[in-house]
């Protein structure tokens, strides 16, 4: 098992000099925090999209059946 330190590439746009630099511990820690946040954001976004799709399906079914819609269901149909 290796403990290689991840690296980043930095290019100086004025000089064209390219450097490959090791991440600092602070940068490594921040990257871990970014990954956790991304997981939370993605989960929330997909959950919200799924909930909206379910509401639309329910609203459509009720409309076809002539049943009253809830406020949330109606909101999915009104722009």
């Amino acid at each position, binding site marked *: 098992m290796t403990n290689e330190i*991840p690296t*980043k590439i930095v*290019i*100086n746009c004025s000089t064209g000099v390219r450097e490959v630099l090791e991440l600092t511990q602070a940068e490594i820690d921040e*990257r871990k925090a970014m990954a956790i946040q991304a997981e939370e954001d993605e989960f929330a976004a*997909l959950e*919200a999209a799924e909930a909206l799709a379910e509401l639309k399906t329910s609203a459509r079914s009720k409309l076809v059946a002539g049943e009253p819609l809830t406020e949330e269901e109606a909101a999915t149909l009104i722009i």
Partner: protein
Amino acid sequence: MQAIQTVTVGSGGQSSITFSSIPDTYTDLVVLCSLRSNRTAEVERLTFRFNGDSGSNYSYKALIGTGSSKFSEGITTNGIISYAATGNTATANTFGNLSLYIPNYLSSNQKSTSQDGVFENNATNAWQNIMANRWTGTAPINSITVTPDFGTLWLEHSTATLYGILAGSDGTTTVTT
């Protein structure tokens, strides 16, 4: 539009790509990326940061499609995000593509940017996004970093190119050269 610099990730990958010391000789900037990360999933979210600012100083409004659903969102973040990179379980040898347009990058006001992108995948799950972004920083943009959020590396052959847009000779018209 002039290419300022291009970075192509080599063997072993890199955790981020940074364009530093961006010249102040242009009117606008464009970043074009072709990216694939080592995340064990089909989609990778990525983050752009300006001048190394990792604070919650960015926000966006987005329309996003996943191939099977769509949603919109608008949140404050610590970078300009995009869902337009592939993870490492997407179709082999495919890369996500996106463009980030940064008008008036030398402005002493907050910066608004726009972005569109899609990750390529020979499957239902293929995300696209269009986004309007804002960075509250008032300093001229002199560095841009792009980082994968879930994965730890941009894989080999990922590329990012920074372009500069020049104002026209009358000082008001943006032209390409």
